[in-house]
Structure formats: C-alpha cells, structure tokens
C-alpha cells in the first residue's frame, strides 16, 4: 500500500511538471508548480525528512512562488506571447537528452544497497530529523551557512539603498 502511494507521488511529480511546462496561461503554470512543490514535499516525507518537507512548503510554495505570482501580476501578463515556444534545433535536443541520460546513469550507478555512514535511519529516528539537520548544519557546515547569510544580506542592503534613493528623488 505504502509503495503504491509512493509510486503515485513519484509519477505524478513527472506528470505535473510536464503540465506546468506546457500551460499557455502563466498563472496556471504557477499553480501547477505549486502542486508540484506539494508533491515533492510528500516525497520528502517518505524519505523521513519531515523538516525538509515543511521547509519546502514554507519557503518554495509560501514565499518564492508567491513572489512569482506577484511579478506576473505586476507585469500584467495574462497570456504568453504567441511565439513558437519549442525549438527544433537537433543539436540542442541531443545535448539535453544526453545530459539527462548521463545524470540518470550517474544516479543509478551510485545507488548503494545499504547506507554506511554516521547518519543512519536509526540515529535520525533517535535524535529527530530536525535536530539532526540543525546539529550538522551549524557544526560541520557552519562556514557555508555564514557565507550564505552574507550572500543573502548583501541584496537586502542593496534593495534598501535603492529604495532610499528613490524616496529622495520624489520629495
């Protein structure tokens, strides 16, 4: 039963991404993307990553996608321009097809029957998923977290500076 549900979510992830790509109305495309993010969150749940699932919904569905929608509304794009949307360039098709095949092969070749590391399922169930991620993030990867924080801080400062300058002009 649980495998059937897992299979449903994996297959519908594929189906929904195709739907999201082929929609003519950008708002509909964003909504399919929302459905896709929710399905991905459920797949995370199947992988015992409850914290990641919730963060997926809060950050991607709750913040980034809403920003997409606001941008769409600000641009007032009710329909995408009626141009040909798909290229017929054979080199491009070959390149993308081959790279996807290579990725899939690389993933398949690195599948191990049994996980042999520090973070086993038993360990994670013992300490809890959220705590395990937190401890790892702020100890082993603390430098990366700091760098990310600085990278995110700079655009914030830049945006405030731009907003201030605009206010001076109008007054």
């Amino acid at each position, binding site marked *: 039963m649980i495998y059937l549900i897992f299979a449903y979510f994996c297959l519908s992830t594929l189906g929904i991404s195709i739907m999201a790509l082929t929609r003519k109305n950008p708002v509909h495309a964003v*909504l399919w993307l*929302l459905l896709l993010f929710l399905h991905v969150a459920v797949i995370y749940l199947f992988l015992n990553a*409850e*914290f990641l699932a*919730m963060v997926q919904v809060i950050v991607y*569905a709750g913040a980034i996608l*809403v920003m997409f929608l*606001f941008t769409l509304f600000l641009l007032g794009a009710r329909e995408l321009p009626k141009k040909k949307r798909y290229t017929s360039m054979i080199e491009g098709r070959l390149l993308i097809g081959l790279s996807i095949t290579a990725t899939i092969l690389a993933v398949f070749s690195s599948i191990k029957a049994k996980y042999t590391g520090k973070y086993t399922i038993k360990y994670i169930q013992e300490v809890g998923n*959220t705590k395990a991620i937190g401890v790892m993030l702020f100890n082993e990867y603390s430098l990366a977290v700091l760098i990310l924080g600085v990278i995110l801080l700079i655009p914030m400062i830049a945006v405030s500076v731009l907003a201030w300058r605009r206010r001076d002009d109008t007054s």
Partner: protein
Amino acid sequence: MIEFLIMLIKTTVVFGIVLTHVAYTTYAERKIIGRAQARMGPMEVGPHGLLQPIADFIKIFFKEDIIPVKAEKLLFQIAPLIVLVFTMINLTVIPFDKNFILADINVGLLFILASASISVYGIILAGWASNSKYSFLGGLRSASQVLSYEIALGLSLAGVVLMAGSLNLRDIVIAQHNTALGVYAIPQIIGFVVFVISAFAETNRAPFDLPEAETELVAGYLTEYSAFRYALFFLAEYVAMYIMAFLCALCFLGGWTIPKFVTDILPFLEKVPGIIWFAIKVYAFIFLYIWVRATLPRYRFDQLLNIGWKVLIPAGILNIIIIAIFKRFTS
C-alpha cells in the same frame, strides 16, 4: 481497522465541536459588540436570539451561487476551498488535552506555518479569478498583508521554539509547564505582544480588516463572491481565529496546564480536566478578538505594512536575541 475507526470518530468530534463553536462565535460576536454599543444584538430567533446562527447558515447556504461571466470559473470555485481546507487541516496537529491530539507529529508548529502559507493562494486566486479590479487589488493587498505578518508571526514563535527546544506542540506545553512561571507569556512578553498583533493581522480581523473597508475597495477579494462560497471564506476566517487562539494558548499561555505555583497553593485545581483550562484560555483570546473589533478604529493600508515591517519584525528579532542570550547563560 479499529484504529482507523477511532481516528475517524475523533476527527469527526473535533471538527464538529470546532464548527459549532464557529457558528456560535458569530452569535457571541454580535451580542458582545451589541453590548459594547449599548444595543441588544440579535433577539428574534429563539430565546435571546440563540438560534440566530442556524437561521443565518440556512439562509446563506440556500442562496443563489453567482459566478461572474468573465471569471476564471474553476479557479473561482476552488479558491474558497483552498482557504478553508488549509485552515481546517491545522486542527489535526493541535493537542487539546494531554492525550487528545489527532496527529502527534514532530514538526507541528512548522506544519501550521506551512499550511498558513498555502492558504494565501486562496486569497490571491480569489482576487485574480474574479476578473474584477476591486477584487484583484483587494486580493493583492490582503495577500501582501498576510505574507508580511506571517514573518512576524514566525519570528515570535521562533522564540518559543528556542526556549522549549522542540517543534512539537505537546513538548512545547510540557516544557512550559516545567518552568517556574508556567507560561511563556511573561518571560517572552515582547514575543507575546508581537504574536497577538500579527495573529489579528494574519486572520484579516479588526483593526486590520481591510477587505471590510467598503470605501476603499468595496469588499476586497470577496467582492464577487456570494452565497455559500462567501460563507466558506467566512467559515475559514473564524476557524483561523480559533487556530490562532489555540496557538496562543499552547505556545504562550501553557495549553491545558496551569502554572505549578497555582496548584501548589490550591491543590484541588489539579483535578480539573485539562481541556477546561484550554477552553478558558481559548475563549479569552476569542473575546479579545471581538473586544478589539468593537473598540479600535481600522488602520490605513500603508500604516498596516509599516507596523508589520518596521515595528513587529525588529521586535520579533529582538525577542529571539534576548531568548538566545537567556538560554545561553541558564543552561
């Protein structure tokens, strides 16, 4: 199979009780506001107007469901459902008593924040799908209001998570019960105030009820809705009020427990079932909602965003810093 049946019965009981409460909250609201304005409130249907909510629901559910010709039909129809479903789903992670919780998951608090962030889509879609200027602008306004206050809400709850060391709502209550004061509302007074204000804004209630400001944008994203689709939005608003009241009771007021120093003085209070303490706290918060609506004037939209971004978010961050320092030097 038996487990499944028990789960089904529990779910029905919880949803039934909450929906009955929602119906009678509308009655309580009209009565209390009536008293505040020296009127009687509803008096006609039943003794003291007690059957008024039932009459209202019968009326609104049998009205004609009008869908504008130029509306995006499917999205127009599902928008109220998105709001209602993703509000009601929160009831599953709320612990009503020590052992009465539908789904005891480890990330309960994040679950509530996540479903709140999805229900914003219902508001945006309702505005967009109506294909009307007023609805659209109102929808965008309400969405940006809910989004900005969600940050303040999350920050004030982050202080609670930091202090309790868990995202599980039951663990938060137990951790709270083990502190000397028994409630987080006193050591985290800044976070508590931020939480209360953003809870009002998050549920689109007075003094932040911009969709109700007829002079500006008619009825905001609700303009084109009628009959039971309007009722669904209405229902979702009241359920959301209850969710916020539950969260406030659980995260700041000690949930189903009462502080230990009280039971030390009056030991017989321990025999009172936890659900009663929980209900008292929730009713107090709902009363606060209604009281504020009867008392305070409405904010302008730019004032509302300024309060959110320039006062509440810095205050929330300050709260986290204070709690972090406190936590560092006590444990």
